[in-house]
């Protein structure tokens, strides 16, 4: 009885307190109580390295590590001389041992969730997905992580926006109950919709809005549980919220986007980074997020064919060089960085990239910390894992040398105190030439390939008498070699005694491969002893080329932005003087000859015909013979937008905002600057009736998204009418979504605004009533809040429109709901009802001369702008097109031709008038003291076909100039040449390279659907 009790106690200790009792067949499994590992070099933690130590393990925990420790009796003792112990790494971003979800989508739009059951209404929000429930041991995936040195992982289903909870597992254990350490180790989020086949969301801004709405729904659910329908999704989400939250991003800017949500909802996201954060480090260091950073650095491109290589964007070449520096640059700037193996398939590459981190300048301590202690802290498990201090879990890897110094072999992996031998300590150095002796005969054996998988060739040389002359005759044969630790078997065919026959050899490798001996079965059927002795000198080591020193001064630098024409450094703010030039003031002064403009701290401070005092340090430009204007403002643009200009998943998507997805890495920003554009309204597309909120930006090339957004700008939203919203040109599959006619469009507006009014009333009632215990805070609805802003006039509408009937309709809807439409954009039939528009008080932003692209533009005429202008409307000319956007001066000039507009009026259509439409005319649109220093210097009259932009100034900084452009062109060329040369040498020395994957044309137009620009002809 006592004995039985003892056994039970033993079992409990050995399993480390995981007291799940599994009936065992027969007597319970036997376990070692104590292990003592001797003479081993141990990284106890990232900051403590003990050489020649003893590690005492009890059960699944480290009992003690030290140079001199007393051992209990009855240890299993293992000598690990010369070996290195590294604490098990912790992988936080993986989906091992979990199923990969599939999409079940069809062709037709799917407006509602296909998930049967009491779940959230959107398929991409599934907090109920619980990795622990789905977890099954996946030996192969396990093996790969173990081979890299990992011992723990948090695995989750990598799908959707709210992905569910992850499970913390220990790798390499065959007991599933033991392997699962904790079932709710963290919640996972992303902006990727995943396999959901539901139409909404179809863009990143939609994903952002959906995530925010669902988080509001969650808090509403939590606080009003009693009055709510049950939701399995919300129940699970509420239950799991306490753990850490991980957010997977695909792009550096997404961290800034998610960070806003993190602040809004008090979620402390840990970001699973994308690998290009180095180019955003100056923004990240302001918010100091915790990051899990990948090490799957891009391979060199195949650049041998110059015709193909020239198509690789310079930004991709630069990324190739900078990517390995990503972790270092982040750590150097004070960010908390854990490393992940995500995206790396082979352990060899993993370790190569780890050592690369040391090469580029991180210390071993920093790298190790990022793989162990930091991830442990991130999941709140630093008490038990991440290092090997006394009492922590005995999970570690044993290498036959220091893996941070050179390529070594992983010998053993210990997980929760269980030992697994992965590779023999025997270091077989078989490669080379041997003298093989079988039954007294000497052969030569050449072993090549690798030490694990060698191949061989055997030679026999004899003197032969040919025509009475002695001739040296050599015959040879291939040898197949199989190695199993110290055992080797070899076989070859060889003529023996003039008969061809098989030699089969088996032997033991001795003295690390200097000698091999054993028994051979000869072609004649007899056994014989054999031996092979390595010839000296043959093993000439090819000394590796000296690695480039990690001289930090030579570290590659990211540009601002990290694209062609990005700047090497931020621009300084100097006073700016442009003198002796012709000013198009757009003010009462009209055109001023021989005048001077002075800018200071981003504002115009002097506009004068007289001599002015030039401030110290000022940049002075002589504008003689040139023309200076205020910057062009593009009222309708779709450049600089990430992942989708349309949220086309629903008819009303007022909740989405372009401001959430401004993308500073669009080369078209620079190209528009070169065309004199300084500000733009980035509009949502026209795929639905009430689209999304606008972003009003300045084209600050090299700035962050938030710096580009114009501070305190009025709020705008895009609405749309006609063929796009009724999906007329989207093919026969798209006949599901309401509305499909102009009749329906009117009703969508009324429905939205009526719902908004009710919503407002509900909130007003709540806010003004006395709170009792039973009073319910109404649900926050992001869409209706925005519609309420429209009703109150706080948010202004820019509406995509073509034919007069629909234009008239929206004005009547607005009249009846008590608001005014601010701008009709496109408005190609505006000339037919300019009088009605004037009466309503709406402005117009139109194309100069586009038409004939679809039925509703049949009556579009290039005289439209002039006619509307004659009727006293505020009229702007816009682009809706990245190409046309860079020559809006030409487009404005067309109204001089079509309709005889004066040049001054024509010019205002791309400067002052759009600023009025955007209600920014108090700070932009003309050359007036106090306004923003957004200026363009032209070689000629800006409306002339001969006019070329010489310089574009935004907020007082010269962001484009002809001279600098030439310098940047040369610099781009040299940079490309330098990087290509580096890649060419890699192409030579390595088999590994990647084919260039071109980016598609990412030019959004109004009707572009999906996250990326299509190459289809656009129809605006």
């Amino acid at each position, binding site marked *: 009885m006592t004995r039985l009790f003892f056994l039970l106690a033993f079992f409990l200790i050995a399993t480390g307190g995981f007291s799940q009792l599994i009936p065992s067949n027969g007597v319970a499994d036997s376990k070692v109580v104590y292990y003592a590992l001797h003479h081993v070099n141990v990284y106890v933690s990232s900051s403590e390295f003990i050489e020649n130590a003893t590690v005492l393990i009890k059960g699944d925990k480290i009992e003690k590590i030290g140079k001199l420790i007393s051992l209990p009796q009855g240890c299993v003792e293992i000598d690990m001389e010369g070996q290195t112990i590294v604490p098990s790494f912790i992988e936080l971003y993986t989906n091992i041992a979990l199923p990969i979800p599939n999409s079940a989508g069809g062709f037709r739009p799917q407006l509602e969730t296909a998930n049967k059951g009491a779940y959230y209404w959107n398929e991409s929000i599934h907090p109920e997905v619980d990795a622990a429930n789905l977890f099954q041991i996946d030996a192969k995936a396990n093996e790969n992580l173990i081979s890299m040195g990992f011992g723990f992982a948090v695995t989750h289903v990598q799908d959707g926006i709210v992905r569910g909870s992850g499970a913390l597992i220990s790798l390499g254990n065959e007991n599933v109950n033991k392997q699962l350490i904790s079932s709710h180790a963290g919640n996972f989020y992303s902006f990727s919709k995943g396999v959901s086949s539901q139409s909404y969301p179809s863009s990143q801004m939609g994903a952002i809005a959906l995530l925010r709405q669902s988080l509001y729904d969650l808090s509403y659910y939590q606080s009003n549980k009693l009055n709510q329908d049950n939701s399995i999704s919300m129940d699970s989400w509420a239950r799991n919220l306490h753990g850490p939250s991980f957010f997977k991003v695909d792009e550096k800017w997404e961290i800034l986007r998610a960070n806003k949500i993190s602040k809004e909802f008090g979620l402390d996201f840990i970001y699973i980074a994308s690998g290009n954060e180095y180019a955003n480090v100056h923004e990240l260091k302001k918010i100091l997020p915790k990051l899990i950073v990948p090490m799957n650095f891009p391979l060199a491109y195949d650049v041998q064919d110059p015709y*193909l290589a*020239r198509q690789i964007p310079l930004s991709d070449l630069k990324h190739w060089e900078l990517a390995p520096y990503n972790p270092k640059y982040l750590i150097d700037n004070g960010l908390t960085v854990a490393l992940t193996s995500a995206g790396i398939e082979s352990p060899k590459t993993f370790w190569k990239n780890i050592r690369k981190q040391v090469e580029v300048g991180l210390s071993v301590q920093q790298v190790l910390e990022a793989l162990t202690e930091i991830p442990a802290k991130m999941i709140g498990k630093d008490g038990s894992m991440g290092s090997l201090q006394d009492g922590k879990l005995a999970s570690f890897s044993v290498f036959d040398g220091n893996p941070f110094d050179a390529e070594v072999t992983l010998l053993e992996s210990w997980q929760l105190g269980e030992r697994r031998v992965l590779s023999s300590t025997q270091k077989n150095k078989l490669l080379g030439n041997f003298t093989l002796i079988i039954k007294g005969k000497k052969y030569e054996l050449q072993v090549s390939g690798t030490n694990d998988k060698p191949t061989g060739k055997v030679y026999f040389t004899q003197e032969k008498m040919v025509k009475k002359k002695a001739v040296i005759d050599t015959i040879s044969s291939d040898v197949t070699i199989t190695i199993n630790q110290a055992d080797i078997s070899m076989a070859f065919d060889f003529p023996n005694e003039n008969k061809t026959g098989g030699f089969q050899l088996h032997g033991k490798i001795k003295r690390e491969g200097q000698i091999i001996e054993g028994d051979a079965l000869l072609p004649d059927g007899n056994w014989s002893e054999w031996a092979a002795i390595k010839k000296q000198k043959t093993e000439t080591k090819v000394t590796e080329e000296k690695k480039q020193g990690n001289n930090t001064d030579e570290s590659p630098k990211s540009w601002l932005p990290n694209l062609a024409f990005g700047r090497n450094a931020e621009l300084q703010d100097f006073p700016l003087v442009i003198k002796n030039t012709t000013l198009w003031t757009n003010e009462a002064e009209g055109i001023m000859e021989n005048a001077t403009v002075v800018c200071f701290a981003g504002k115009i401070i002097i506009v004068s015909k007289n001599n002015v005092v030039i401030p110290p340090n000022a940049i002075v430009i002589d504008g003689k013979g040139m023309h200076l204007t205020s910057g062009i403002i593009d009222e309708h643009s779709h450049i600089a937008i990430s992942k989708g200009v349309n949220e086309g998943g629903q008819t009303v998507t007022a909740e989405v905002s372009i401001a959430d997805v401004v993308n500073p890495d669009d*080369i078209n920003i620079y190209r528009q600057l070169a065309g004199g554009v300084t500000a733009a309204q980035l509009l949502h597309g026209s795929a639905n009736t009430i689209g999304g909120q606008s972003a009003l930006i300045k084209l600050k090339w090299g700035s962050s998204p938030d710096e580009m957004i114009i501070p305190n700008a009025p709020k705008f939203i895009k609405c749309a009418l006609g*063929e796009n919203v009724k999906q007329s040109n989207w093919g026969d599959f798209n006949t599901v979504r309401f509305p499909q006619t102009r009749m329906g469009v009117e009703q969508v507006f009324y429905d939205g605004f009526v719902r908004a009014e009710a919503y407002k009333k509900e909130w007003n009632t709540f806010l003004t009533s006395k709170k009792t215990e039973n009073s319910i805070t109404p649900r926050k609805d992001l869409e209706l809040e925005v519609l309420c802003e429209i009703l109150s006039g706080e948010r202004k509408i820019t509406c995509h429109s073509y034919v007069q009937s629909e234009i008239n309709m929206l004005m009547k809807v607005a009249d009846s709901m008590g608001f005014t439409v601010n701008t009709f954009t496109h408005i190609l039939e505006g000339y037919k009802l300019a009088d009605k528009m004037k009466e309503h008080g709406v402005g117009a932003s139109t194309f100069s*001369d586009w038409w*004939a*692209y679809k039925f509703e533009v049949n009556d579009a005429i290039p*005289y439209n702008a002039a006619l509307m202008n004659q009727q006293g409307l505020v009229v702007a000319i816009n682009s809706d097109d990245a190409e046309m956007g860079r020559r809006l001066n030409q487009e404005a000039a067309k109204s001089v031709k079509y309709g005889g507009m004066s040049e001054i009026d024509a010019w205002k259509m791309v400067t002052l008038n759009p600023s009025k439409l955007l209600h920014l005319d108090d700070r932009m649109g003309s050359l007036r003291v106090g306004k923003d220093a957004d200026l363009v210097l032209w070689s000629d009259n800006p409306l002339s076909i001969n006019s070329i932009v010489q310089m574009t100034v935004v907020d007082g900084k010269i962001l484009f100039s002809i001279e600098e452009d030439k310098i940047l062109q040369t610099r781009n060329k040299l940079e490309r040449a330098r990087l290509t040369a580096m890649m060419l040498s890699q192409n030579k020395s390595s088999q590994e390279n990647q084919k260039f994957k071109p980016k598609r044309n990412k030019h959004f137009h109004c009707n572009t659907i999906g996250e990326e620009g299509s190459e289809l002809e656009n129809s605006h």
Partner: protein
Amino acid sequence: MKRLLFFIAFIMCVMSSSFGQKTLLINGYLHVGNGDVMPTAAIGIIDGKIVSIKNAMTTRYEPSDWDTIIDVEGQHVYPGFVAPNSTLGLTEIDAVRATRDFQDVGEFNPHVRTQIAYNVESNVIETVLTNGVLFAQATPRGGIISGTSSVMFLAGWNWEDATILKDDGIHVNWPPATSGGGWWAEPAPKSINKDYANQKATIEGFFEMSFAYANNKEDDFDQRLEAMIGCFKGKKRVFFHADELQQLLDVIEFCEKYAIKYPVIIGGHDAYLLGARLKDSHIPIMLERVHKLPEFEDEPVDLPYQLPNLLQNQGVLFCLQNQGDMEAMNARNLPFQAGTAMAYGLTEEQAIQAISLSTCQILGIDEKYGSIEIGKSATLFVSQGNALDMRTNKVNLIMRDGKLIENTNFQEDLYLKYKKKYQKN
């Protein structure tokens, strides 16, 4: 201006036919189209042909010698501009399939002809005409050989009447030298087009078959190959649509191999990199759209604007064309694309030449059209100011073979209609 209007009204009555008509166009600033100018010209036109060009300041003329004298003092006289490689007249509303008539089914369609699909009543073509673009090469799209184009006038009672040059050439879409790339959701590696050699061989095979047919004396009839005969006899041009370096080099080689008498490259983005090789091959270029974004991230921002001048400097014969998004309606902006090329290096007259004489040379109609020279057709227009600048391109007079063409379009009609509406109010 009053005088001009008077004349136009007068002419409309008188000149229903140009036969025997003697017209003198005086005092205009003449842009010949070949690079020359004459600031005050007296252009004599008899039977639709230009019979004399003299300096109006130094030459006296006898008013009674002329049936009509049109004084265009202070205005500019240009040869009709040409929009080559265009779907103008073959499409009306891009988004409406029923109105698209430029692409048929099949890979080798040389027998498919645009001439008979050309819609003279197209609302689009009259809006192009009134900007000084008087001709278009109505061009088919799609497949490997899209079909046969024809050069058409942008007005007429029917397609026969509008035809300037029937079946001027076939259009070969050269296979891309690079392939792959997937689509945006699943980018795949881009590499050298592995089928390139094969695709090239397919074209070669077709040309060999056509060549053999052309030399076959037997009277078998093959509709498709019949359409190819002209290519080998110098009666039809072969237009190769190609942009990439690799493609251009292969087209040059192909033209040598098959002794194509009149080859033309359309597109030619990389042509500026080829320099002398292109010039030596005597293959002219119909250059891609000037109003275009750079092809690659680190291409100079203004490269598309510079390309015409780069070719000009290399001595390559080239003209401008406008293929691309909304190309039909956009053809009216061709003069301004030439204008942009002028801002970026071409001289004004070079820019004019790139949309008039050079185009006509490349199309093979320069004997009659493309410049205002003695012996050529009086097919020209008069603009209030510089026709390459948006502000001053105001076409006051259009003439085809000496005959005045109506110079309005429905857009102007709508403008006047609504202008009147507001004046009444």
